[in-house]
Protein backbone atom coordinates (compact mmCIF):
# COMPACT_ATOMS: atom_id res chain seq x y z
CA UNK A 1 0.00 0.00 0.00
CA UNK A 2 1.22 3.46 -0.80
CA UNK A 3 2.31 5.32 2.31
CA UNK A 4 2.57 8.60 0.43
CA UNK A 5 0.58 9.75 -2.59
CA UNK A 6 1.12 13.24 -3.95
CA UNK A 7 -1.29 14.11 -6.69
CA UNK A 8 -0.95 17.01 -9.13
CA UNK A 9 0.53 19.32 -6.51
CA UNK A 10 0.71 23.05 -7.23
CA UNK A 11 2.26 25.35 -4.68
CA UNK A 12 5.10 27.68 -3.72
CA UNK A 13 5.94 30.80 -1.78
CA UNK A 14 4.00 34.05 -2.00
CA UNK A 15 1.83 33.01 -4.89
CA UNK A 16 4.83 32.18 -7.06
CA UNK A 17 4.23 28.57 -8.01
CA UNK A 18 7.35 26.45 -7.84
CA UNK A 19 5.49 23.18 -8.13
CA UNK A 20 3.36 23.09 -11.28
CA UNK A 21 1.67 19.75 -10.92
CA UNK A 22 3.93 17.17 -9.31
CA UNK A 23 2.74 13.64 -8.62
CA UNK A 24 4.74 11.06 -6.72
CA UNK A 25 3.97 7.88 -4.86
CA UNK A 26 5.94 5.93 -2.30
CA UNK A 27 5.15 2.39 -1.13
CA UNK A 28 5.66 1.53 2.51
CA UNK A 29 8.77 -0.56 1.88
CA UNK A 30 10.72 1.39 -0.69
CA UNK A 31 13.17 4.18 -1.22
CA UNK A 32 11.99 6.74 -3.74
CA UNK A 33 14.54 9.16 -5.12
CA UNK A 34 13.53 12.53 -6.52
CA UNK A 35 16.18 14.01 -8.78
CA UNK A 36 16.39 16.91 -11.16
CA UNK A 37 18.34 20.09 -11.89
CA UNK A 38 18.66 23.02 -9.52
CA UNK A 39 15.41 24.90 -9.15
CA UNK A 40 13.32 21.93 -10.26
CA UNK A 41 11.33 22.17 -7.03
CA UNK A 42 12.73 19.10 -5.27
CA UNK A 43 13.21 20.72 -1.87
CA UNK A 44 9.95 22.64 -2.23
CA UNK A 45 8.17 19.35 -2.85
CA UNK A 46 9.52 17.95 0.42
CA UNK A 47 8.59 21.08 2.32
CA UNK A 48 5.07 21.16 0.97
CA UNK A 49 4.54 17.50 1.86
CA UNK A 50 5.66 18.38 5.38
CA UNK A 51 3.32 21.36 5.61
CA UNK A 52 6.02 24.02 5.44
CA UNK A 53 5.11 25.49 2.05
CA UNK A 54 1.56 26.52 1.12
CA UNK A 55 -0.21 24.28 -1.34
CA UNK A 56 -2.55 25.93 -3.86
CA UNK A 57 -4.11 22.81 -5.31
CA UNK A 58 -3.61 19.09 -5.55
CA UNK A 59 -3.64 16.59 -2.73
CA UNK A 60 -1.23 14.85 -0.41
CA UNK A 61 -2.28 11.57 1.17
CA UNK A 62 -0.25 9.94 3.92
CA UNK A 63 -1.11 6.46 5.10
CA UNK A 64 -4.53 6.75 3.48
CA UNK A 65 -5.55 10.14 4.87
CA UNK A 66 -5.41 13.58 3.32
CA UNK A 67 -2.75 15.67 5.05
CA UNK A 68 -2.72 18.75 2.83
CA UNK A 69 -2.15 21.78 5.04
CA UNK A 70 -1.53 19.87 8.29
CA UNK A 71 1.16 21.40 10.52
CA UNK A 72 4.49 19.63 11.11
CA UNK A 73 3.93 18.94 14.81
CA UNK A 74 0.83 16.89 13.92
CA UNK A 75 2.53 15.10 11.03
CA UNK A 76 5.28 14.00 13.38
CA UNK A 77 2.65 12.34 15.56
CA UNK A 78 1.10 10.65 12.52
CA UNK A 79 4.44 9.04 11.68
CA UNK A 80 6.21 11.28 9.21
CA UNK A 81 9.69 12.70 9.83
CA UNK A 82 11.58 15.26 7.81
CA UNK A 83 15.30 15.97 7.78
CA UNK A 84 16.03 19.42 6.30
CA UNK A 85 19.04 19.90 4.11
CA UNK A 86 21.08 22.13 6.36
CA UNK A 87 21.02 23.38 9.93
CA UNK A 88 19.34 20.15 10.86
CA UNK A 89 20.67 19.72 14.40
CA UNK A 90 20.58 21.89 17.55
CA UNK A 91 24.28 22.72 17.83
CA UNK A 92 24.27 23.87 21.47
CA UNK A 93 22.54 20.72 22.71
CA UNK A 94 24.37 17.48 23.35
CA UNK A 95 23.94 14.53 21.01
CA UNK A 96 21.62 12.85 23.50
CA UNK A 97 19.55 16.00 24.00
CA UNK A 98 19.14 16.33 20.23
CA UNK A 99 17.69 12.83 20.14
CA UNK A 100 15.37 13.63 23.05
CA UNK A 101 14.06 16.63 21.10
CA UNK A 102 13.21 14.24 18.28
CA UNK A 103 10.80 12.53 20.65
CA UNK A 104 9.46 15.70 22.25
CA UNK A 105 5.81 14.84 21.54
CA UNK A 106 6.17 11.58 23.45
CA UNK A 107 5.60 11.49 27.17
CA UNK A 108 6.65 7.90 27.85
CA UNK A 109 10.32 6.98 28.35
CA UNK A 110 12.41 7.02 25.21
CA UNK A 111 15.24 4.69 26.22
CA UNK A 112 14.21 2.03 23.74
CA UNK A 113 13.99 4.39 20.77
CA UNK A 114 17.35 5.85 21.73
CA UNK A 115 18.93 2.40 22.03
CA UNK A 116 17.71 1.62 18.50
CA UNK A 117 19.25 4.81 17.14
CA UNK A 118 22.52 4.10 18.93
CA UNK A 119 22.53 0.56 17.50
CA UNK A 120 22.13 1.97 13.98
CA UNK A 121 24.73 4.70 14.52
CA UNK A 122 27.46 3.43 16.87
CA UNK A 123 29.45 6.59 16.10
CA UNK A 124 26.68 8.71 17.59
CA UNK A 125 26.49 6.46 20.64
CA UNK A 126 30.17 7.11 21.36
CA UNK A 127 29.63 10.86 21.29
CA UNK A 128 26.33 10.93 23.15
CA UNK A 129 27.51 13.36 25.86
CA UNK A 130 29.27 15.71 23.45
CA UNK A 131 27.90 19.05 22.32
CA UNK A 132 26.56 18.27 18.86
CA UNK A 133 27.95 21.48 17.34
CA UNK A 134 31.38 19.88 17.64
CA UNK A 135 30.46 16.97 15.36
CA UNK A 136 31.82 16.65 11.80
CA UNK A 137 29.50 17.09 8.83
CA UNK A 138 28.91 13.34 8.60
CA UNK A 139 28.32 13.08 12.33
CA UNK A 140 25.74 15.86 12.19
CA UNK A 141 23.93 14.14 9.33
CA UNK A 142 23.84 10.86 11.23
CA UNK A 143 22.52 12.65 14.28
CA UNK A 144 19.82 14.34 12.20
CA UNK A 145 18.82 10.95 10.77
CA UNK A 146 18.83 9.41 14.21
CA UNK A 147 16.67 12.18 15.61
CA UNK A 148 14.18 11.71 12.78
CA UNK A 149 13.88 8.03 13.73
CA UNK A 150 13.13 8.68 17.40
CA UNK A 151 9.36 8.48 16.93
CA UNK A 152 9.47 5.28 14.90
CA UNK A 153 8.16 6.95 11.75
CA UNK A 154 6.50 5.18 8.85
CA UNK A 155 7.97 7.63 6.35
CA UNK A 156 11.20 9.57 6.32
CA UNK A 157 11.69 12.61 4.06
CA UNK A 158 15.36 13.35 3.40
CA UNK A 159 16.46 16.56 1.73
CA UNK A 160 19.92 16.08 0.25
CA UNK A 161 21.46 14.12 3.09
CA UNK A 162 24.79 13.91 1.25
CA UNK A 163 25.21 17.65 0.59
CA UNK A 164 28.71 18.81 1.41
CA UNK A 165 29.98 15.44 2.58
CA UNK A 166 33.16 13.66 1.49
CA UNK A 167 32.48 10.68 -0.83
CA UNK A 168 33.37 8.10 1.79
CA UNK A 169 31.07 9.65 4.39
CA UNK A 170 28.35 10.06 1.78
CA UNK A 171 28.46 6.35 0.95
CA UNK A 172 28.19 5.57 4.64
CA UNK A 173 25.08 7.74 4.93
CA UNK A 174 23.50 6.03 1.91
CA UNK A 175 24.35 2.69 3.47
CA UNK A 176 22.42 3.74 6.56
CA UNK A 177 19.45 4.86 4.49
CA UNK A 178 19.25 1.35 3.02
CA UNK A 179 19.36 -0.10 6.53
CA UNK A 180 16.59 2.26 7.59
CA UNK A 181 14.40 1.07 4.71
CA UNK A 182 15.12 -2.56 5.55
CA UNK A 183 13.94 -1.91 9.09
CA UNK A 184 10.53 -1.03 7.64
CA UNK A 185 10.61 2.73 7.11
CA UNK A 186 9.66 4.17 3.71
CA UNK A 187 12.09 6.83 2.48
CA UNK A 188 11.64 9.68 0.02
CA UNK A 189 15.02 11.19 -0.76
CA UNK A 190 15.83 14.32 -2.73
CA UNK A 191 19.34 14.32 -4.14
CA UNK A 192 21.65 16.49 -6.13
CA UNK A 193 23.87 13.45 -6.46
CA UNK A 194 21.47 11.76 -8.85
CA UNK A 195 23.49 8.69 -9.84
CA UNK A 196 24.16 7.61 -6.28
CA UNK A 197 20.56 8.20 -5.31
CA UNK A 198 19.15 6.18 -8.22
CA UNK A 199 21.58 3.30 -7.55
CA UNK A 200 20.18 3.07 -4.07
CA UNK A 201 16.53 3.80 -4.79
CA UNK A 202 13.82 1.32 -5.66
CA UNK A 203 12.10 3.88 -7.84
CA UNK A 204 12.90 7.36 -8.98
CA UNK A 205 11.25 10.50 -10.29
CA UNK A 206 12.86 13.14 -12.44
CA UNK A 207 11.57 16.64 -11.82
CA UNK A 208 12.14 19.76 -13.92
CA UNK A 209 10.52 23.18 -13.61
CA UNK A 210 8.12 21.84 -11.05
CA UNK A 211 6.76 19.03 -13.21
CA UNK A 212 7.27 15.27 -13.52
CA UNK A 213 9.62 14.50 -16.39
CA UNK A 214 10.08 10.79 -15.90
CA UNK A 215 9.24 8.00 -13.50
CA UNK A 216 10.72 4.52 -13.41
CA UNK A 217 12.71 2.08 -11.31
CA UNK A 218 16.04 3.46 -10.19
CA UNK A 219 17.93 1.03 -12.41
CA UNK A 220 15.94 1.88 -15.57
CA UNK A 221 16.37 5.61 -15.02
CA UNK A 222 20.11 5.07 -14.68
CA UNK A 223 20.17 3.13 -17.94
CA UNK A 224 17.95 5.55 -19.81
CA UNK A 225 20.25 7.29 -22.27
CA UNK A 226 18.20 10.47 -22.53
CA UNK A 227 17.86 10.91 -18.76
CA UNK A 228 21.57 10.22 -18.49
CA UNK A 229 22.39 12.94 -20.96
CA UNK A 230 20.03 15.51 -19.51
CA UNK A 231 20.27 14.95 -15.78
CA UNK A 232 23.11 12.64 -14.87
CA UNK A 233 25.92 14.35 -16.73
CA UNK A 234 26.89 11.31 -18.80
CA UNK A 235 27.54 11.26 -22.54
Amino acid at each position, binding site marked *: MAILEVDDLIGGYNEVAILNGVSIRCESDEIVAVIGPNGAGKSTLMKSV*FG*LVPVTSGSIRFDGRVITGIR*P*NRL*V*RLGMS*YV*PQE*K*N*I*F*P*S*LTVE*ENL*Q*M*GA*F*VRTEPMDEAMAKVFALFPFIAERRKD*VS*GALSGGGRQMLALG*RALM*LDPKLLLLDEPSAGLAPLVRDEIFEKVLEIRDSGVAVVIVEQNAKKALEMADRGYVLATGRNQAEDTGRSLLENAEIGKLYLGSN
Partner: protein
Amino acid sequence: MPQLLANGIVFGCIIALGAIGLTLIYGILRFGNFAHGDTMSLGAYLALLFVGLRMPFLAAVGLAIGVSIVVAVLIDRYLYAYIRRAGPIILLIASVGVALFLRNVILLIWGPDLEYYSREIQFAVHILPGVRLKPYEVFIVLAAAVLILLVHLFLKKTKIGKAMRACADNLDLAEVVGIDTRRVVLWTWAVGIALAVSGGVMLGVENGLRPAMGWELLLPLFAAAILGGIGKPYGAMAGGLVIGIAQEVSAGYVSTAYKPAVAFAIMIIVLLVRPQGIFGGRRRWM
Protein backbone atom coordinates in the same frame (compact mmCIF):
# COMPACT_ATOMS: atom_id res chain seq x y z
CA MET B 1 38.24 47.91 47.15
CA PRO B 2 36.90 44.63 48.65
CA GLN B 3 33.90 46.66 49.82
CA LEU B 4 33.24 47.99 46.31
CA LEU B 5 33.60 44.47 44.97
CA ALA B 6 31.02 43.20 47.45
CA ASN B 7 28.61 46.00 46.51
CA GLY B 8 29.20 45.09 42.89
CA ILE B 9 28.33 41.46 43.49
CA VAL B 10 25.04 42.46 45.17
CA PHE B 11 24.11 44.76 42.29
CA GLY B 12 25.46 42.25 39.74
CA CYS B 13 23.14 39.54 41.07
CA ILE B 14 20.14 41.82 40.52
CA ILE B 15 21.27 42.64 36.97
CA ALA B 16 21.97 38.99 36.23
CA LEU B 17 18.43 37.99 37.22
CA GLY B 18 16.96 40.58 34.88
CA ALA B 19 19.40 39.87 32.08
CA ILE B 20 18.70 36.11 31.99
CA GLY B 21 15.04 36.76 31.19
CA LEU B 22 15.90 39.45 28.66
CA THR B 23 18.30 37.14 26.87
CA LEU B 24 15.92 34.14 26.92
CA ILE B 25 13.12 36.23 25.44
CA TYR B 26 15.50 37.56 22.81
CA GLY B 27 16.73 34.07 21.97
CA ILE B 28 13.32 32.47 21.60
CA LEU B 29 10.88 35.28 20.74
CA ARG B 30 13.48 37.16 18.70
CA PHE B 31 13.09 40.68 19.99
CA GLY B 32 14.66 43.02 22.52
CA ASN B 33 12.01 43.34 25.20
CA PHE B 34 12.19 46.98 26.31
CA ALA B 35 9.38 46.34 28.78
CA HIS B 36 11.56 43.96 30.79
CA GLY B 37 12.80 46.61 33.20
CA ASP B 38 9.31 47.92 33.83
CA THR B 39 8.07 44.39 34.41
CA MET B 40 10.69 44.26 37.19
CA SER B 41 9.16 47.43 38.64
CA LEU B 42 5.64 46.07 38.31
CA GLY B 43 6.61 42.92 40.19
CA ALA B 44 8.34 44.93 42.89
CA TYR B 45 5.25 47.14 43.39
CA LEU B 46 2.90 44.15 43.39
CA ALA B 47 5.04 42.63 46.15
CA LEU B 48 4.71 45.95 48.00
CA LEU B 49 0.93 45.72 47.64
CA PHE B 50 0.84 42.20 49.06
CA VAL B 51 3.25 43.05 51.88
CA GLY B 52 0.87 45.92 52.68
CA LEU B 53 -1.90 43.33 52.96
CA ARG B 54 0.16 41.74 55.73
CA MET B 55 1.30 38.75 53.74
CA PRO B 56 4.61 37.17 54.72
CA PHE B 57 7.38 38.63 52.56
CA LEU B 58 8.27 35.53 50.55
CA ALA B 59 4.60 34.70 49.94
CA ALA B 60 4.07 38.27 48.72
CA VAL B 61 6.99 37.92 46.32
CA GLY B 62 5.67 34.56 45.09
CA LEU B 63 2.24 36.02 44.43
CA ALA B 64 3.78 39.07 42.72
CA ILE B 65 5.69 36.69 40.43
CA GLY B 66 2.50 34.80 39.63
CA VAL B 67 0.49 37.93 38.82
CA SER B 68 3.33 39.39 36.75
CA ILE B 69 3.60 36.18 34.70
CA VAL B 70 -0.13 36.31 34.00
CA VAL B 71 0.19 39.96 32.91
CA ALA B 72 3.15 39.15 30.65
CA VAL B 73 1.43 36.16 29.07
CA LEU B 74 -1.73 38.19 28.44
CA ILE B 75 0.33 40.94 26.80
CA ASP B 76 2.05 38.29 24.71
CA ARG B 77 -1.21 36.70 23.63
CA TYR B 78 -3.18 39.87 22.93
CA LEU B 79 -0.42 42.11 21.61
CA TYR B 80 2.85 40.45 20.59
CA ALA B 81 1.19 37.36 19.09
CA TYR B 82 -0.55 39.51 16.47
CA ILE B 83 2.64 41.16 15.29
CA ARG B 84 5.05 38.24 15.78
CA ARG B 85 5.49 37.91 12.02
CA ALA B 86 5.95 41.64 11.46
CA GLY B 87 9.61 41.46 12.45
CA PRO B 88 11.78 42.22 15.46
CA ILE B 89 11.79 46.01 15.11
CA ILE B 90 7.99 46.22 15.25
CA LEU B 91 7.97 43.97 18.32
CA LEU B 92 10.68 46.06 19.95
CA ILE B 93 8.73 49.28 19.39
CA ALA B 94 5.60 47.61 20.74
CA SER B 95 7.52 46.61 23.85
CA VAL B 96 8.58 50.25 24.35
CA GLY B 97 4.85 51.04 24.36
CA VAL B 98 4.22 48.30 26.91
CA ALA B 99 7.05 49.72 29.02
CA LEU B 100 5.49 53.19 29.03
CA PHE B 101 2.10 51.71 29.81
CA LEU B 102 3.35 49.67 32.77
CA ARG B 103 5.36 52.55 34.19
CA ASN B 104 2.40 54.92 34.03
CA VAL B 105 0.05 52.38 35.58
CA ILE B 106 2.50 52.14 38.47
CA LEU B 107 2.67 55.93 38.67
CA LEU B 108 -1.12 56.15 38.62
CA ILE B 109 -1.63 53.61 41.42
CA TRP B 110 1.33 54.18 43.70
CA GLY B 111 2.43 57.73 42.84
CA PRO B 112 5.93 59.07 42.25
CA ASP B 113 7.25 58.95 45.82
CA LEU B 114 9.89 56.58 47.12
CA GLU B 115 8.33 53.58 48.84
CA TYR B 116 9.85 50.96 51.13
CA TYR B 117 8.96 47.38 51.98
CA SER B 118 9.93 48.03 55.57
CA ARG B 119 10.81 51.09 57.63
CA GLU B 120 13.10 49.00 59.75
CA ILE B 121 16.72 50.14 59.54
CA GLN B 122 19.38 47.50 59.17
CA PHE B 123 22.99 48.12 60.07
CA ALA B 124 25.85 46.78 58.00
CA VAL B 125 27.94 44.14 59.70
CA HIS B 126 31.39 42.79 59.00
CA ILE B 127 31.14 39.57 57.05
CA LEU B 128 34.78 39.52 55.93
CA PRO B 129 37.71 41.71 56.91
CA GLY B 130 37.10 45.03 55.16
CA VAL B 131 33.68 44.03 53.84
CA ARG B 132 30.50 45.27 55.49
CA LEU B 133 27.13 44.26 54.14
CA LYS B 134 23.62 44.61 55.49
CA PRO B 135 22.01 41.28 56.39
CA TYR B 136 19.46 41.60 53.58
CA GLU B 137 22.28 42.13 51.08
CA VAL B 138 23.73 38.77 52.05
CA PHE B 139 20.26 37.35 51.55
CA ILE B 140 20.05 38.93 48.07
CA VAL B 141 23.27 37.26 46.99
CA LEU B 142 22.26 33.88 48.38
CA ALA B 143 18.77 34.04 46.89
CA ALA B 144 20.17 35.06 43.50
CA ALA B 145 22.64 32.16 43.62
CA VAL B 146 19.82 29.72 44.40
CA LEU B 147 17.64 31.11 41.58
CA ILE B 148 20.49 30.93 39.06
CA LEU B 149 21.19 27.34 40.11
CA LEU B 150 17.50 26.51 39.62
CA VAL B 151 17.54 28.06 36.14
CA HIS B 152 20.62 26.02 35.33
CA LEU B 153 18.94 22.78 36.44
CA PHE B 154 15.78 23.73 34.57
CA LEU B 155 17.65 24.35 31.30
CA LYS B 156 19.85 21.26 31.58
CA LYS B 157 17.63 18.64 33.19
CA THR B 158 14.01 19.22 32.23
CA LYS B 159 12.51 18.42 28.86
CA ILE B 160 10.93 21.84 28.48
CA GLY B 161 14.20 23.52 29.48
CA LYS B 162 16.06 21.56 26.83
CA ALA B 163 13.34 22.47 24.32
CA MET B 164 13.88 26.15 25.24
CA ARG B 165 17.56 25.82 24.38
CA ALA B 166 16.62 24.02 21.17
CA CYS B 167 14.22 26.82 20.20
CA ALA B 168 16.89 29.42 20.89
CA ASP B 169 19.23 27.45 18.62
CA ASN B 170 16.86 27.11 15.68
CA LEU B 171 13.16 27.88 15.96
CA ASP B 172 12.29 26.55 12.49
CA LEU B 173 13.97 23.24 13.17
CA ALA B 174 12.21 23.04 16.54
CA GLU B 175 8.87 23.24 14.70
CA VAL B 176 9.95 20.60 12.19
CA VAL B 177 11.02 18.24 14.92
CA GLY B 178 7.62 18.54 16.56
CA ILE B 179 8.47 20.67 19.59
CA ASP B 180 5.39 22.48 20.88
CA THR B 181 6.81 25.96 20.37
CA ARG B 182 3.76 27.67 21.88
CA ARG B 183 4.33 25.90 25.15
CA VAL B 184 7.99 26.84 24.98
CA VAL B 185 7.02 30.51 24.51
CA LEU B 186 4.82 30.35 27.63
CA TRP B 187 7.63 28.85 29.68
CA THR B 188 10.05 31.45 28.38
CA TRP B 189 7.84 34.22 29.71
CA ALA B 190 7.28 32.38 32.98
CA VAL B 191 10.96 31.82 33.69
CA GLY B 192 12.07 35.22 32.41
CA ILE B 193 9.43 37.14 34.37
CA ALA B 194 9.92 35.11 37.56
CA LEU B 195 13.61 36.02 37.56
CA ALA B 196 12.91 39.64 36.60
CA VAL B 197 10.40 40.11 39.43
CA SER B 198 12.81 38.50 41.89
CA GLY B 199 15.47 40.96 40.75
CA GLY B 200 13.00 43.86 40.92
CA VAL B 201 12.06 43.02 44.51
CA MET B 202 15.74 42.78 45.45
CA LEU B 203 16.34 46.18 43.90
CA GLY B 204 13.39 47.53 45.89
CA VAL B 205 14.80 46.07 49.09
CA GLU B 206 18.19 47.61 48.37
CA ASN B 207 17.22 51.06 47.08
CA GLY B 208 13.50 51.48 47.74
CA LEU B 209 10.81 51.55 45.07
CA ARG B 210 10.37 54.23 42.43
CA PRO B 211 8.25 53.96 39.28
CA ALA B 212 11.31 54.41 37.04
CA MET B 213 13.48 51.88 38.92
CA GLY B 214 13.23 49.17 36.26
CA TRP B 215 13.38 51.47 33.26
CA GLU B 216 16.66 52.90 34.55
CA LEU B 217 17.98 49.36 34.92
CA LEU B 218 17.33 48.56 31.26
CA LEU B 219 20.71 49.82 30.08
CA PRO B 220 22.77 47.63 32.43
CA LEU B 221 20.44 44.72 31.60
CA PHE B 222 21.07 45.04 27.88
CA ALA B 223 24.77 45.61 28.50
CA ALA B 224 24.93 42.38 30.53
CA ALA B 225 22.97 40.40 27.93
CA ILE B 226 25.13 41.68 25.07
CA LEU B 227 28.32 41.14 27.05
CA GLY B 228 27.34 37.52 27.59
CA GLY B 229 26.33 37.03 23.96
CA ILE B 230 22.65 37.78 23.50
CA GLY B 231 20.41 34.72 23.57
CA LYS B 232 22.74 32.88 25.96
CA PRO B 233 21.49 32.56 29.55
CA TYR B 234 24.84 31.49 31.00
CA GLY B 235 26.45 34.46 29.32
CA ALA B 236 23.84 36.76 30.85
CA MET B 237 24.59 35.46 34.35
CA ALA B 238 28.28 36.20 33.97
CA GLY B 239 27.58 39.47 32.09
CA GLY B 240 25.36 40.67 34.94
CA LEU B 241 28.08 40.15 37.51
CA VAL B 242 30.70 41.84 35.33
CA ILE B 243 28.51 44.90 34.72
CA GLY B 244 27.47 45.10 38.39
CA ILE B 245 31.03 44.90 39.65
CA ALA B 246 32.33 47.32 36.98
CA GLN B 247 29.69 49.90 37.90
CA GLU B 248 30.30 49.71 41.64
CA VAL B 249 34.09 49.57 41.45
CA SER B 250 34.08 52.59 39.13
CA ALA B 251 32.44 54.51 41.97
CA GLY B 252 35.75 54.30 43.80
CA TYR B 253 37.50 56.29 41.09
CA VAL B 254 34.96 58.52 39.36
CA SER B 255 31.74 60.18 40.44
CA THR B 256 28.88 57.77 41.07
CA ALA B 257 26.90 59.79 38.51
CA TYR B 258 28.95 57.96 35.86
CA LYS B 259 27.75 54.48 36.88
CA PRO B 260 25.33 54.11 33.93
CA ALA B 261 28.05 55.43 31.61
CA VAL B 262 30.26 52.54 32.68
CA ALA B 263 27.63 50.01 31.56
CA PHE B 264 27.17 51.94 28.35
CA ALA B 265 30.91 52.09 27.67
CA ILE B 266 31.28 48.35 28.25
CA MET B 267 28.36 47.66 25.92
CA ILE B 268 29.83 49.80 23.14
CA ILE B 269 33.29 48.29 23.49
CA VAL B 270 31.86 44.77 23.37
CA LEU B 271 29.74 45.60 20.31
CA LEU B 272 32.78 47.05 18.55
CA VAL B 273 35.32 44.41 19.46
CA ARG B 274 33.34 41.24 19.96
CA PRO B 275 29.73 41.64 18.83
CA GLN B 276 28.90 37.99 19.49
CA GLY B 277 29.62 38.61 23.19
CA ILE B 278 32.54 37.68 25.41
CA PHE B 279 31.07 34.25 26.04
CA GLY B 280 29.46 33.93 22.62
CA GLY B 281 32.18 31.75 21.18
CA ARG B 282 31.05 30.38 17.87
CA ARG B 283 27.34 30.86 18.33
CA ARG B 284 27.22 28.35 21.13
CA TRP B 285 25.74 28.68 24.61
CA MET B 286 28.57 28.68 27.04
